[in-house]
């Protein structure tokens, strides 16, 4: 309820600003994504239409409002069951542990993709001489990694489409620029009360050619233990650092986060990445990700691990990952890329070729395929093949 009031207040402020705005602009895009894929030896078809309306207004030299609203309709296979994405053995063991059968569990794990409309971002930014303040539902990018961001607890990335836009986060953000490249950022996430709200502090500077950051985040980590059938809530304190720069001609970056957990075991997550462009323009990228939450043996992936992977947390199952990719501009309009994500512990992975085509000044077309490989019961081994075609038209 408080969150609704918060958003409502923001929209009111935004509209008040808009009414006096010196420069008001409506933009947005329409997007359709067609997503055929293999699931349990069947071909499943999904499709959505998404309309995003963006509004930006410059109320004065030092005050701006930005917001966007999303309306999305789903078509095709809109009813899915999470249990279909989890190996049968793990589901059976889980059912046994709960003293029930798989069939009786299935209705509890049905997912219905209902049409949705929501305020994706809506924020007011105040610019002062030595401080910027942003209030509202806003983007909070965190970390330097491409496929994974261990220091980011605000967003969840999809390894198959890591650069796709994320939903905004309700927050109060204060930025204090210092020197030419330095910035201190303080964030207060808006939740039921101050104690349960996320707090973050980050210091960033550019030193000897490197962007360096140190961060501290404290949040109330929620969740659900399916095996013990109980809600989870504990304090999580994250100490993080990241960098990006250049070494021996390579672009290099890294991120590390050590998580101090109130009840469960502390864990660390670390990432190192590098990229390079050949004289021909062929671009290479690679990342190694160490996931302290993961397990090295696929036999030890339990039902909770799978739900954490498939659910909102998006945490991977294994301990060690490799991401490799190459990208090339075939013509001025066609970009071709190939990417590979491998779980080094269970040796499963996903290979996904990617094509982007500029159909017009404001029209993008994307084709992505994927082929998963690996033994049964591995992280990616039962994902089969699939892909998506996406068209986006800006206006």
């Amino acid at each position, binding site marked *: 309820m408080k969150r609704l009031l918060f958003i409502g207040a923001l929209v009111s402020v935004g509209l008040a600003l808009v009414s006096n705005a010196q420069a008001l602009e409506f933009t947005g895009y329409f997007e359709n994504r067609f997503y055929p894929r293999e699931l349990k030896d069947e071909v499943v078809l999904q499709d959505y239409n998404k309309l995003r309306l963006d509004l930006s207004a410059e109320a004065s030299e030092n005050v701006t409002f930005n917001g966007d609203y999303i309306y999305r309709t789903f078509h095709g296979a809109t009813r899915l069951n999470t249990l279909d994405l989890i190996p049968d053995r793990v589901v059976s063991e889980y059912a046994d542990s709960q003293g029930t059968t798989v069939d009786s569990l299935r209705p509890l794990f049905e997912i219905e993709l209902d049409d949705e409309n929501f305020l994706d971002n809506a924020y007011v930014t105040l610019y002062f001489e030595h401080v910027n303040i942003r209030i509202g539902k806003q983007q909070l990018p965190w970390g330097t990694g491409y496929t994974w961001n261990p220091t980011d607890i605000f967003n969840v990335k999809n390894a198959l489409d890591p650069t796709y836009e994320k939903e905004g986060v309700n927050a109060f953000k204060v930025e204090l620029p210092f020197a030419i490249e330095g910035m201190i950022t303080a964030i207060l996430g808006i939740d039921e009360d101050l104690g349960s709200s996320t707090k973050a502090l980050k210091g960033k500077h550019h030193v000897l050619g490197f*962007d360096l950051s140190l961060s501290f985040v404290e949040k109330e980590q929620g969740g659900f233990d399916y095996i013990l059938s109980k809600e989870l809530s504990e304090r999580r304190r994250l100490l993080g650092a990241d960098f990006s*720069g250049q070494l021996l001609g390579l672009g290099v970056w890294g991120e590390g986060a050590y998580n101090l957990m109130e009840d469960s075991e502390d864990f660390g997550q670390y990432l190192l990445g590098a*990229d390079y462009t050949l004289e021909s323009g062929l671009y290479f990228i690679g990342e190694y990700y160490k996931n302290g939450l993961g397990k090295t043996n696929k036999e030890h992936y339990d039902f909770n691990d799978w739900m954490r992977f498939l659910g909102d947390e998006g945490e991977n199952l294994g301990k060690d990952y490799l991401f490799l990719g190459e990208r090339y501009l075939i013509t001025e309009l066609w970009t071709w890329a190939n990417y590979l994500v491998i779980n080094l512990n269970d040796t499963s992975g996903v290979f996904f070729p990617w094509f982007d085509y500029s159909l017009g000044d404001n029209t993008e077309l994307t084709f992505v395929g994927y082929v998963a490989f690996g033994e049964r019961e591995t992280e990616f081994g039962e994902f089969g093949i699939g892909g998506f075609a996406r068209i986006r038209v800006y206006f």
Partner: protein
Amino acid sequence: MKKLIVITAVTWLALGTVNVHALTSKEIIEKIDGTERVASSEGMARQIITTSGGKKRTLEFKSYSKDRNDKQLVIYTAPKRVKGDKILMLNEGDDIWFYTPKTDRVRHLASHARRQKVQGSDFAYEDLAGGSIEEDYTYTLLGEEKIDGTKCYKFELIPTESGPHYSKLILWADKETYVTIRIDYYEDGELLKCLRCYDIRNIDGHWCAMKLVMTNLQEGGQTVMETLEIRFDIALEDALFSTPSLKRR
């Protein structure tokens, strides 16, 4: 850095420069460098990309430069697909940051990214970054030639370690104004791209080419960069050329 084309699509020369006899090649190069490296500038430009298949894409952007192109900033204004994207180049293009408002993310690109094409155009980042011929090339005066009736000095430029990735450039500069008229870019001994500079005007006491045409001779594409507005020697704050400023409107 490294190249002879400024992001604002202009080249320039101090007003009143007069060609004098018996200049050494070093003195000529210093004058050519002088035309391209003004104290500061602010402008708007349009880029029309024509693909080898004849399709066109049009981009528009604002540009700012300071400290003789050591600092450069580009802000895309059209089309909607890229509106608000920003490119910040510091240290003559050795450090590049790319910002997109869709995710509010600033990404640091390593110097190898200078070889990548900018927004699908025939210009690479290193073609647009600032820099001096003196520092980034060893040069040889090959003689004098006419380009479209304009008497030009003709130079061969071989990139040094701090220079771009091309194997060789041939540059023609106007003998009167020292404005660059043409550059041929070679890669592994083969002619890769050709830049032609047109519509030379004197603005605010600086000579500049209002229209640049980069033709990719191997791929067949062409990018025309037209300067729509340009102002020189204006006061720009250092803070404009910083990563925190990328997130401002």
